[in-house]
């Protein structure tokens, strides 16, 4: 090797030893911590400001230390995800191969997007190693006992514990890194941009991961703009461009600017920050004094020469005085300074690709954060800087001097993640690099011990039916007992899909047998199961609650069947309650018995007979037969049951019932009871089996006590019966009227553009602050250019998951063949409009 060359591989690392979460080089000891992801987006400004202040204090507590912050990525464990999904699925009989193909298709679609997940680690250099420690280590090597001595580790243990205690609480919530995580960080730092193998399934040890670094070579060119990394095992090449943060303008975070180390970029980027935390009374103050003296000297020199003092010198002096005052007398989170270097590593398969991405990053940073990102020389030393333990590649240039609160505002841990990462693939986030969104509707019950209630709201055309139908398909495909209430009927097309057809049944209520919706039969009696009720008292209370619920449902259904003039009529209500006391409150009772009881009420006279006659008149309407007669059990064990009322108009909830047509009046109790029927079916399917109910047009339940009780039941029983329920509606105001916010764990809000008040209501569902500009986000969802006639091929939602994370997502189920066509609820465009041929029949021959 000549003096003109330098070997630049991973075989001369300064890092010697990893003990727990400590790394040792010849010169110093660094403690490494994993920083968990921070929920940042769609949160109110006040808690984010408070969080930044907390984090600034924690960093100020590290005064005197050198920090190495590394943000890197790991490939999304696609195979592990698909394997776990397979394990939690129940394939239909003779359909194991079909389910396996379904999951392989999902995995392949996910892998096409090259998904990755980020993780951030913070290294705190806590001590310089003394000459005695190094001598002891050298002697140990001679005696064939290499490594740091126990005495050295014991001496620094207390200091390490102090830092761990400082960084662990709310704010950074740092946890000591594991050896596997450190090995992974080393691999990603040595092999920047190289595709690591999918090792997650094998759970490798740190030595296995380190062995991967032996096959990585680096190549540099004179004054090159990139460094080339080569994996000798696979032949893969990665061309890496290292950029560095240059001049920064003031950051107004969180009100205006996003965190400056967590900008939304369309490709993965590695981040390495080497900074010194300078205490107020240390070098920072001295350096400021020196700078102030230089500036003052320059101003004096201009005065001596009779030249006007340039304005920038006056401003610099004012600023230096201000900063010096801040450093000397400010609070710790303002007085502490962070001096250091902030680098980005961008990789691509070719040099041109890397340079292109570098240019893209520079442009995005300038446009969105007003930060000038520079592309310096010395690429290879800067690339080595990413490796823990390696020296700073260029100490003299691009030093950033920041107050600690601006350093805290970098928030490298801000994540765009949403969803549980264990359920079905339903789409991708629209920020933070297109991260996959998985949703397991049973995750809140099985893992988080919470209710399985999901709210879904969007204006017509906002994609509500598509999302509800997609969730139904994906769950039914994996063996979840699924019941859908789709009044309009388009989701019944799911039954035509070949892979679902053998396990799907469609129940059209407009043609169902009498008694299907008999209200007495829709409220099940609780079973005396010791697994459900810990004591006899608890069971007795549940039984009595069921009786009350049944009576409330019957009361509401009868009031819906009576003419609307009787709504709110106290006498009618009183007579009805009296009659219901006479009729046995059990599942086999019928509305005919209620009619007889009304007629036979003592002292009711004309009013009682009148009510009975009106109810009997209602029974003559064809669709009302569903409520009368003996309750008819739906005998189906179909995995997917779709309940529709096709042909029946939905009631207009914004007008008085007095103005409704007869069909609309019938539709109201049908919807109520259809929702009840869907829920009641789940109780016959076994307690532990996963179940899913999708209730569309659920806003009709607003204003009726039985409606509220249905949601109480779902929320109460969702954990006991492993029941997930999606409540869908077009109007968030009606859903808010149901007062479900405390029961709901997941929320989807689609496009809402018509009314700002409704948008504000939707934000309340998402628990996002109103009046901070988020209403515009809802209006821009699923935006279509007015000049473009091509139907929009996707739908967007703002999703809040069970852990409180909120993100804008794009639904993507294109990997399921035929699903989008089956869920297309738009009317077909006339073919003639697509034709450009002249129409002589319209305008005559002269216009041919």
């Amino acid at each position, binding site marked *: 090797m000549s003096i003109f060359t330098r070997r630049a591989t991973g*075989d*001369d690392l300064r890092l010697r030893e990893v003990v727990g979460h400590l790394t040792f080089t010849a010169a110093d000891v660094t403690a490494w911590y994993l920083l968990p992801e921070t929920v940042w987006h769609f949160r109110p400004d006040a808690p984010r400001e408070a969080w930044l202040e907390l984090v600034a204090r924690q960093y100020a507590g590290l005064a005197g230390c050198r920090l190495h912050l590394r943000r890197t990525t790991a490939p999304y464990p696609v195979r592990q995800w698909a394997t776990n999904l397979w394990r939690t699925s129940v394939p239909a009989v003779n359909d194991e191969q079909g389910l396996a193909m379904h999951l392989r298709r999902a995995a392949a679609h996910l892998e096409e997007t090259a998904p990755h997940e980020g993780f951030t680690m913070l290294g705190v250099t806590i001590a310089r190693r003394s000459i005695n420690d190094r001598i002891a280590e050298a002697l140990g090597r001679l005696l064939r006992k290499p490594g740091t001595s126990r005495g050295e580790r014991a001496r620094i243990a207390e200091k390490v514990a102090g830092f761990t205690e400082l960084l662990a609480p709310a704010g950074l919530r740092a946890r000591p890194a594991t050896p596997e995580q450190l090995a992974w960080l080393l691999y990603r730092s040595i092999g920047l941009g190289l595709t690591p193998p999918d090792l997650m399934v094998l759970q490798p040890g740190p030595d296995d991961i380190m062995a991967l670094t032996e096959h990585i070579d680096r190549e540099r060119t004179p004054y090159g703009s990139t460094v080339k990394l080569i994996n000798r095992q696979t032949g893969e090449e990665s061309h890496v461009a290292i950029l560095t943060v240059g001049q920064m303008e003031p950051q107004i*975070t969180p009100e205006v600017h996003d965190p400056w180390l967590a900008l939304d970029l369309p490709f993965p980027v590695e981040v390495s920050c080497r900074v010194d935390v300078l205490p107020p009374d240390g070098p920072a103050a001295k350096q400021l004094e020196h700078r102030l003296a*230089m500036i003052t000297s320059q101003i004096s020199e201009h005065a001596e020469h009779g030249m006007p003092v340039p304005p920038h010198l006056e401003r610099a002096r004012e600023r230096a005085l201000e*900063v010096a005052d801040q450093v000397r007398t400010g609070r710790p989170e303002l007085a502490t300074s962070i001096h250091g270097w902030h680098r980005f590593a961008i990789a691509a398969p070719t040099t041109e690709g890397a340079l292109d991405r570098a240019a893209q990053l520079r442009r995005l940073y300038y446009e969105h954060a007003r930060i000038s990102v520079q592309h310096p020389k010395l690429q290879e030393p800067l690339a080595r800087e990413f490796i823990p333990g390696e020296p700073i590649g260029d100490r003299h240039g*691009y030093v950033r*001097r920041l107050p600690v609160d601006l350093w805290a505002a970098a928030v490298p841990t801000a994540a765009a993640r949403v969803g549980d990462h264990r359920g079905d693939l339903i789409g991708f986030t629209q920020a933070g690099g297109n991260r996959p969104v998985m949703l397991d509707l049973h995750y809140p019950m099985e893992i988080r011990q919470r209710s399985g209630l999901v709210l879904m709201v969007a204006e017509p055309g906002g994609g509500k039916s598509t999302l509800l139908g997609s969730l139904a398909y994906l769950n039914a495909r994996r063996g979840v007992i699924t019941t859908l209430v789709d009044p309009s009927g388009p989701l019944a097309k799911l039954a035509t899909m070949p892979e679902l057809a053998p396990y799907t049944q469609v129940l059209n209520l407009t043609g169902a047998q009498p008694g299907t919706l008999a209200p007495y039969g829709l409220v099940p009696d609780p079973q005396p199961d010791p697994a459900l009720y810990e004591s006899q008292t608890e069971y007795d209370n549940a039984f009595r609650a069921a009786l009350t619920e049944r009576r409330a449902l019957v009361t509401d259904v009868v009031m819906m069947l009576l003419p609307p003039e009787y709504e709110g009529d106290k006498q009618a209500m009183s007579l009805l309650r009296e009659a219901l006391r006479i009729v046995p409150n059990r599942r086999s009772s019928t509305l005919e018995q209620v009619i007889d009881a009304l007629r036979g009420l003592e002292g009711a006279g004309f009013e009682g007979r009148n009510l009975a006659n009106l109810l009997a008149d209602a029974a003559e309407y064809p669709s009302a037969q569903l409520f009368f007669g003996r309750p008819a059990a739906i005998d189906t064990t179909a995995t997917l049951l779709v309940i529709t009322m096709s042909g029946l108009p939905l009631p207009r909830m914004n007008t008085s019932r007095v103005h409704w047509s007869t069909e609309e009046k019938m539709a109201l109790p049908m919807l109520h009871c259809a929702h009840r029927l869907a829920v009641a079916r789940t109780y016959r399917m076994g307690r532990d089996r996963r179940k899913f109910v999708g209730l569309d047009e659920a806003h009709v339940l607003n204003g009726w006590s039985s409606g509220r009780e249905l949601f109480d039941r779902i929320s109460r029983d969702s954990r006991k019966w492993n029941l997930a329920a999606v409540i869908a509606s077009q109007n968030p105001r009606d859903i808010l009227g149901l007062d479900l916010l405390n029961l709901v764990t997941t929320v989807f809000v689609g496009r809402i553009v018509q009314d700002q008040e409704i948008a504000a209501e939707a934000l309340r569902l998402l628990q996002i602050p109103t009046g901070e500009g988020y209403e515009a986000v809802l209006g821009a969802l699923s935006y279509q250019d007015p000049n473009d006639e091509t139907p929009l091929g996707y739908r967007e939602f703002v999703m809040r998951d069970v852990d409180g994370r909120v993100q804008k997502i794009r639904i993507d189920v294109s990997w399921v063949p035929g699903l989008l066509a089956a869920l297309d609820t738009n009317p077909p465009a006339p073919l003639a409009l697509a034709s450009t041929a002249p129409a002589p029949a319209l305008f005559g021959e002269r216009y041919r």
Partner: protein
Amino acid sequence: MASRQPHDDVWRTRNVWLGPPGLTLPFHLPYAEYGVGLVVSVLFVVPTQLLLGWKWCGFALGAAILVTHLLFQFVNPDRPARQVALTVLTDWKRTPPRQAGPERPLRARVRFVDDGAGRPNR
């Protein structure tokens, strides 16, 4: 709204020499440029004088001034003269492609030691 401002603007001022007292120079160069210019001049003129004699020292001085001026085209508050000089002097190296043959073992390996906290180190 809290505006968080870096301290860099304090370090972005250029210290220029306007001239000796009583005489304002028509050009205002940073102090650092005079210092670097002096060093570069010595590096150019001394070998020239030793090898070629005084006749050529004027050209050497001119070349030194030119080189200093070119160097300082790249100098700014984020790229001080020291950094530019080090880049010029060290970034010219290249790495040859790896030769075919038996692979060199790692000279230094990273040891993973069980810290006794029960963490699985293999």
